[in-house]
Structure formats: structure tokens, C-alpha cells
């Protein structure tokens, strides 16, 4: 699907420059100034707003309360506890300067400065369901543009069949790298046609603001029909390959995590059922809800997997 070019505004008009300053800079600035601890606390909130136009791809479901999505995170680079990323990432992760290298089977390999990358295409707000492989889910209003926009810009060669995403792995910024949970750096991958699908999003923000560090700042992918771990965070490299790339979780436990990892209620995780899920923020006496095939995006994406044995190619 093509994105309309005749917008009433130019992409450069969307975001004020101040937005691109990281939370860390804001925090330092406020602490450095003669401002009280209280206002420092206020400024430390993700104040950098990011405007975007609404998208027809959004679900009408009510977004999960943002404090839950920013406070309950799997981002093992900062620790395996759900509270580790919100505890450590905001103060440790430096999101400026940030460069994303695009390389491999492309005609125009290049490095993007994050502030240029975000202007590559008009930003949209996409409210997507997020289904974690751990059987919990959320509804998140992401801000970004289709990954396809970037892919077209760099012109994959005829050999390019897959796209690999690599997350930053800097022990100075990421206390979780000390553990051998994952063979760092974290890598993820998509088939090229999956990456080109209009639902696959390159995200820079959520809830009207730039991405919080713990949710994958400054840039991540969001692939809503796959389990959350497929959506790599804090990306520093995007590589186009001919062969299927090895992904971090596949390497860690091949019997449990496959390359595709599409949301599939019929294909159990070896240690738990994927038939149902818990929506974050629901009360203690609420029931699980049924998990939908492709996380409810079957109409849009099922054709990508026509003829494939989804029990084997999980």
C-alpha cells in the first residue's frame, strides 16, 4: 500500500526540534538549572511530544494505560525483570547521537542519523494490539511510518530475501548485557515480504510522545501479528540478506522460538498454552481473553503464509 504524498503539511513541520532531545538531556538540563527537584521530576516525564496523523490501520480498542506499557517491559539488555528496563533504561540509554546503518543486499547502503530517519516519511499513529509470547497483551498507540518506506529508499537487490534487525549492545549503557541470557547483540528478522507489509511499522514514538528508553528508543520495529519479541528495539543496524538470519531467541531456545513466531493460538509454547491471554491493566478478577490468529490481523497477513505448515514453521 502506498502512503499519500499530498499531505496538508510537510514532514519537517510535524516535529519541533526540541522533541528530538532525549529524556536524558532534558533531565540533565533540569537538574543543572536552578530548578527544584519537583519540576525536575515533571520534566523527566516523557514530555517530548510527537504529532502524527491517525491511520486507518488502527484498532478501535481502547489503548492500555501508558504507565503499564512503560512500566512492564521485556528489554533484557536492561535486566530480565519487568521493572528493570523502566528502572535503568531512562537514565542509562543515550538516544542522541544515534545512527542506524542500513547494509547488506541493498543498492544504496547508508547510515541514517536518527533525526534524518524520522523525517523519511510522514508519521502516523497506529493503535495496534501487542501480544507477548508470555501470554499477556496490550493495546499501544505507536507513532511511526511503514517499514516499507525505508526499504524502498535503500533499494534491496534481487538477492535480498530477509531483513535482519540488530539492537544496540553497549555494556556501558545496558546493565543486562552482563548475563548470558541472550547471545548479544539481540537480533531479529523478517522475510522481506513481511517487512514490506503495510502493517510493519518503524516506530519512533508512542502515546503521542517519543519512545521512552525502556520501550526501545529511539527507533524500533512493530510487527503486530507476531509475538512481541519479534519487534526489535533500539535498532542500530538493518541488514538485508539472502539467507534467513539467525534470531536471538531462536539461538537461545530453538524448540521454543521459531523464526516466524506469528501469533497462533493453536501452536502452544512448549511450556504454556497460547490459546488465551491477559490484557495488561485488567483487574485481578477478570478472565483471560481468547488469543486471535495472527493477533487479529489475519485478514491482512494470512496470505503471506498461504500453503505453509504453521505448526512446523512456528
Amino acid at each position, binding site marked *: 500500500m502506498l502512503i499519500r504524498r499530498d499531505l496538508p503539511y510537510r514532514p519537517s513541520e510535524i516535529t519541533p526540534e526540541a522533541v528530538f532531545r532525549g529524556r536524558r538531556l532534558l533531565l540533565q538540563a533540569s537538574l543543572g538549572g536552578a530548578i527544584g527537584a519537583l519540576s525536575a521530576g515533571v520534566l523527566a516525564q516523557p514530555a517530548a511530544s510527537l504529532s502524527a496523523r491517525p491511520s486507518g490501520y488502527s484498532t478501535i480498542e481502547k489503548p492500555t494505560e501508558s504507565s503499564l506499557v512503560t512500566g512492564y517491559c521485556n528489554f533484557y539488555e536492561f535486566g530480565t525483570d519487568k521493572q528493570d528496563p523502566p528502572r535503568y533504561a531512562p537514565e542509562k540509554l543515550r538516544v542522541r547521537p544515534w545512527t542506524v546503518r542500513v547494509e547488506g543486499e541493498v543498492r544504496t547502503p547508508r547510515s541514517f542519523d536518527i533525526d534524518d530517519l524520522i523525517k523519511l516519511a510522514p508519521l502516523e499513529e497506529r493503535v495496534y494490539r501487542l501480544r507477548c509470547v508470555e501470554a499477556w497483551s496490550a493495546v499501544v498507540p505507536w507513532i511511526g511510518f511503514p517499514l516499507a518506506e525505508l526499504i524502498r529508499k535503500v533499494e534491496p537487490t534481487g538477492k535480498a530475501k530477509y531483513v535482519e534487525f540488530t539492537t544496540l549492545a553497549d555494556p556501558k549503557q545496558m546493565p543486562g548485557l552482563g*548475563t548470558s541470557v541472550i547471545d548479544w547483540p539481540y537480533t531479529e528478522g523478517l522475510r522481506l515480504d513481511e517487512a514490506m507489509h503495510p502493517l510493519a511499522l518503524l516506530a519512533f514514538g508512542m502515546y503521542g510522545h517519543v519512545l521512552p528508553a525502556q520501550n526501545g528508543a529511539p527507533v524500533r520495529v512493530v510487527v503486530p501479528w507476531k509475538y512481541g519479541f519479534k519487534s526489535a528495539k533500539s535498532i542500530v543496524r538493518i541488514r538485508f540478506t539472502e539467507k534467513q538470519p539467525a534470531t536471538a531467541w531462536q539461538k537461545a531456545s530453538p524448540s521454543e522460538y521459531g523464526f516466524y513466531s506469528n501469533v497462533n493460538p493453536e501452536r502452544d509454547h512448549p*511450556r504454556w498454552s497460547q490459546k488465551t491471554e*491477559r490484557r495488561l491493566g485488567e483487574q485481578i478478577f477478570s478472565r483471560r481473553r481468547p488469543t486471535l490468529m495472527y493477533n487479529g490481523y489475519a485478514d491482512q497477513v494470512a496470505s503471506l503464509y498461504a500453503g505453509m505448515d504453521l505448526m512446523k514453521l512456528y
Partner: protein
Amino acid sequence: MSSSPRAFAFVPPALPATTLGIIRASVFVVALLPLAGLVQRGVAGTLGANPVEMVLRSLGTWTLVLLLATLAITPLRRVTGWAWLVRLRRMLGLFAFFYATLHVGAFVWLDHWFNWAEILADVVKRPYLNFGFAAYVLLIPLALTSTQAMVRRLGGRNWLRLHRSVYAIGVLGVLHFWFHKLAKNDLSQPVIYAVVLALLLGMRLAHTLSARTIAASSGALRQGRVDSPAKSSATVSRRRTQ
């Protein structure tokens, strides 16, 4: 002065009944604090993004902690000589069962809403649930026979034999946690429980073996044939097979 081995036994200082009462009451209150904390957070709505998971894990953690505390009593008593510690053991064991019951109850009710078909399929299929379920089933008879009356009815020897299954329960409980955490490739927490359990079981094993050696050699002494070490170790191994 007698030359019998009993003369070397450490005589623990006696604890006044009121002091013991205060200690028991304190342990009782402390053991209830985790539950009180959960209830308080539940009422305040501060159980986090995933309240059911939070409650399940907290109850599971406290079950394991109390189980290990129960298993720690005897080794601790031997090291310190505080005989009164044994008066806390039943209460700690029953609290372990109490938290285990709440843990299983939360799993059956809050997590699965009494969907027995789903629960059964999971318990059969998932290794971590195999271990957890087995551990809980084995805990039930121990809780039921925990009263003084049941000790008398079963007879001390049978009762002791039955209650030795607590070692197996400890191992199963740690395995339950271990296999649950395996998913995340992060065993840093289960390892702690496994090490503590291994330590406690190791201390018991060491004690049993040395007690048998003493018994064997004193037995040999009485029979007036304390000669080669080979012979006495043969006595030990013969006793071990009994």
C-alpha cells in the same frame, strides 16, 4: 564422669516458656505478612500491570521460602544447639502448605477460572506443572498428619517415614520454579533456591552418615572388636542397606 558418648552431647540452654511463646507468635505474624501485603496491594489496586501473574508468583515464592525455612530447622538446631527451634517446625511447614494452597487456588481460580479441562491438559503437558502438582499433592498428607494426635495414631516411626517425603517435595518445588524460569533462559533466582536446598539436604546427609559411623563404631566398641577401619566401614555399609 562417664565415658559414654552421651557425656559429650551439647546441652542446650533451656528457653523460658514465655520467650518461646513470643518467638512463636512473632513467626506466626511474620509468616502472614506476605499475604497481608498482597491483600493490601490488591485493595489499593497497586498489584501492577499483570495482577494475576504478580499474585501467583508472590505466593509461589513464599511457598518455597517457607518450605526451605521448614527444612532449615533441623540443621540449624544441630549447628546452634537450640532445641526449641523444633517447636517452630510444624508451624512453618503448615504455613508452607497454606501458601502452596493459595498458590494453587490462584492458579485454578484467578488464572484459569475453574476450567478443569484446560488445567488438567496443562498439568499433564507442562514439565513445570508436573513438578508443581506433584509437590502439592505430596504436601497434603503431611499437612493432614501434622497434629500430635496423628503422630500418635501413626506411630513415631511411620510418621517420620511419611514426613521424610518433605525432602522430595523440596526438590520438586525447586524443579517447578526452575522449569518455569527456563523459558527466560534466566536461572539466577532458581539457582539460589537450589543451592540453599542442596546445602540443607547436604547437611542432613552428612549428619546421618556421621551418626551411622558413630553408631557403628560404638556398636563395635561394645562388642569389643574395634580393629581395622575396613571392618568398621563394612559395618556402616551393612547398616546402610537395612
